[in-house]
């Protein structure tokens, strides 16, 4: 099978669903996962139900990929949860859930993906982060901190996996119209967007434009980078 194999986490809805459909359209075989069943189907797309922070569930997904394809070209770590609260009002349960999904989940998928990718000495990993980290957004302490951890993970993994022909990069979207920001007030979002050099919401196409660049075979000399949309740095 010559189609590239692309694994994307958090594909039930939002950015993940868009990216899954985008890469199927581009001729990839896409594997997606989420904590519950997806309510959509597509040829050349296979969905698994898995909590990204559950090691045995994640290993099962990779066992299936190994049996079916014996290769993995691309991983996009998109699954993420946010906790938008003042830190003094953030329950420990929320803290743990955000860290488990965003940090532990990203780590597990990177680790297992790299094991498969290194067999062919080729791979592309893209981790989704957030502008909440460089903007130090109030009310998003744990979310921003968890994605800061993913930034650092990206940079260290880029070094560790370089010898295996695997690049690891990150992409930080500005607010995008997804469930993740539904709980944030319109007023707060408008204020946030006014801090961007380019003042608009990100579109799914803006995100795919960057993932296309990172996944490109020609991007073999690009690793350990974090690119924020909208002009944020």
């Amino acid at each position, binding site marked *: 099978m010559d189609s590239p194999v692309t694994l994307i986490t958090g594909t039930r809805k939002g950015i993940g669903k868009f990216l899954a459909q985008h890469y199927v359209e581009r001729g990839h075989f896409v594997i997606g996962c989420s904590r519950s069943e997806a309510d959509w189907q597509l040829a050349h797309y296979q969905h698994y139900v898995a909590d990204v922070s559950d090691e045995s569930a994640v*290993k099962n997904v990779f*066992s299936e990929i190994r049996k079916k394809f014996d290769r993995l070209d691309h991983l996009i770590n998109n699954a993420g949860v946010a906790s938008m609260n003042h830190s003094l009002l953030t329950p420990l349960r929320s803290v743990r859930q955000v860290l488990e999904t965003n940090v532990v989940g990203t780590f597990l998928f990177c680790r297992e993906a790299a*094991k498969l990718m*290194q*067999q062919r000495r080729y791979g592309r990993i893209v981790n989704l982060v957030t502008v909440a980290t460089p903007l130090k957004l109030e009310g998003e302490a744990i979310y921003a901190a968890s994605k800061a951890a993913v930034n650092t993970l990206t940079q260290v993994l880029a070094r560790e996996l370089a*010898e*295996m022909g695997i690049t690891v990069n990150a992409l930080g979207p500005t607010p995008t119209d997804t469930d993740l920001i539904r709980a944030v007030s319109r007023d707060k979002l408008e204020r946030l967007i006014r801090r961007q050099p380019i003042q608009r919401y990100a579109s799914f196409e803006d995100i795919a434009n960057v993932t296309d660049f990172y996944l490109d075979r020609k991007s073999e000399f690009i690793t350990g980078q974090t690119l924020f949309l909208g002009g944020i740095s």
Partner: protein
Amino acid sequence: MKEKLCKLIIDVAGDLNENLDPPIRLDGGEDAPLYGPDGRLSSLGLVSLIIAVEQAIEEQFGVAITLADERSFSLSQSPFRNVGALADYANTLLIEHQG
């Protein structure tokens, strides 16, 4: 079981040797050194070997074990020092998994 695991490790290491410089000397069989003072594997070579052995064990025995964990790195005698030691360690993990 140990014989089976030794053969599995030697087969896996033989495949890896195509991309290793210097290659692992496998003529010593069970005593063939892997990683450490007597071994010729680099740390990256060890990572590749561990991953390949884990995958081969999963394919042959249907069990996903983790060879590189806190215990394997804290043992007084490294399970990665030679083929026999790695086979013993993998066997211990397989027995624990069945138990």
